[in-house]
């Protein structure tokens, strides 16, 4: 089913503020099996010149995926989410994410296209503190695979 092209360029309201917690950073670091002390030990992070625990480079997905879901789970878009796989991801960080940051994401639909029956949508998530300081941008491309395709 072709996607509703009118979604291209559409922006969504900022997501509910997300307070980055130390235990969430530690949980995420454990889930990616990364023992880097900057993710776990506040003193080690401070010794590197940081105000608090540093979030791993891909941590922003915790905020940016729900922001992208606002778009891709909208029934009006027409995306078959059961056939969705992740196509591309990029994080541009203006500064590291730290424990204690309160962040929101504004999702915008960058691009919608169809290639060989696969529906492809790219969203941009602008991440900022609730005080308005830009923190970074997460680009997320999701692919809904064509129904008659064989195993990927």
């Amino acid at each position, binding site marked *: 089913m072709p996607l509703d092209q009118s979604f291209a360029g559409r922006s969504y309201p900022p997501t509910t503020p997300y307070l980055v917690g130390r235990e969430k950073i530690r949980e995420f670091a454990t889930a990616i099996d990364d023992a880097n002390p900057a993710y776990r030990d506040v003193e080690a992070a401070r010794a590197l010149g940081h105000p608090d625990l540093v979030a791993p480079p891909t941590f922003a997905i915790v905020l940016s995926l729900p922001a992208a879901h606002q778009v891709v789970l909208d029934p009006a878009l027409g995306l078959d989410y*059961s056939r969705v796989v992740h196509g591309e991801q990029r994080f541009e960080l203006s500064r590291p994410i730290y424990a204690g940051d309160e962040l929101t994401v504004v999702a915008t639909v960058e691009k919608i296209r169809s290639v060989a029956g696969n529906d492809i949508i790219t969203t941009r998530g602008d991440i900022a503190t609730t005080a308005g300081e830009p923190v970074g941008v997460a680009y997320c491309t999701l692919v809904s695979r064509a129904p008659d395709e064989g195993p990927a």
Partner: protein
Amino acid sequence: MTPRHADVEVGHALPAQTFRLTRADLVRYAGASGDFNPIHWNERFARGVGLPDVIAHGMLTMATAVRVVTDWVGDPAAVVDYGVRFTKPVVVPNDDTGASLTVEAVVAEKLDGGLVRVDLTARSGGDKVLGMARVLVRLP
């Protein structure tokens, strides 16, 4: 010690690493990330949508692969830009061994402002699973 921008040369290969991803790792990552797409934990669902088996979250592969860079620099906040394409799925069998992920990294470009670009190559089961995997790192 953190490598210094002045000392790093294009073509320098970072120490490669091999990681293992099991079904338990996928469940743990689902919980930590909030991505509960059943293709990452439910074999019946994954096969039903045409996948060969349960596959790892692309984001888990992405997070794991950049370890080669953050272990090299020490301070993970040195990563200022990181992008990948997910070119092939990392298929994770229902056993205790899981999937293997081997990551190589090479300094591809030196840029102004203390930045270097590191290109990653990630392989699982003979397939290149990431494409255009590029990390911009700020070095002292």
